[in-house]
């Protein structure tokens, strides 16, 4: 079973990138891959509560996140340092595991593919 990590490291909305990456994660789960998601750097802004769809009606990333468990995507990680630097709390609407730098290295090194180039 192929292990694929999706990295979300940019903020949502300005670009359609994060939403497109989440789409790919859902497809990977449907193809029986072992899917992990890592939020780091400005990608953690995707986790703010109270997001609304934007002016053009683009889907809310927060809402997309809530649907991940329907696809059995439960390996959800967030970089502790990235949260701390931005003054964000470690509790979210979905169950995410905060992890440090070493755990992130190991997570990346154990994958068959890492998708989502970014910071």
């Amino acid at each position, binding site marked *: 079973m192929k292990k694929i990590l999706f990295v979300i490291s940019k903020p949502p*909305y*300005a670009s359609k990138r994060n939403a497109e990456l989440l789409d790919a994660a859902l497809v990977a789960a449907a193809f029986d891959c072992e899917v992990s998601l890592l939020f780091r750097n400005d990608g953690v802004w995707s986790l703010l509560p109270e997001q*609304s*769809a934007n002016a053009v009606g683009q889907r809310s990333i927060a809402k997309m996140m809530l649907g991940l468990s329907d696809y059995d995507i439960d390996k959800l990680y967030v970089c502790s340092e990235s949260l701390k630097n931005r003054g964000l709390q470690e509790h979210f609407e979905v169950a995410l595991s905060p992890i440090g730098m070493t755990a992130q290295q190991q997570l990346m090194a154990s994958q068959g593919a890492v998708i989502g180039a970014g910071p």
Partner: protein
Amino acid sequence: MSLHLVFTLAGLEHCQKRRHAGEPVVLLGDGVYGISEAIDNCYILQPDAQTRGVTPSVQAPQFIDYETFVQLTIDHHPSVSWTD
């Protein structure tokens, strides 16, 4: 007196280095995540903040609509845009 339009957090950092004290700043797009940095004379575009779930903090800058945004570009000149 320049008006600074800041579209990203990296843009905010660069703007702050080169802005004359007192020149107003408008945070829009991903720039609105800079809300918690204590910047003097700072405005934040309300629709962009709302989309992102960015809510006013204690020492919040002033939330503005597009009408006020237009007025700021009239009152201050030139507009300088900052991004990554």
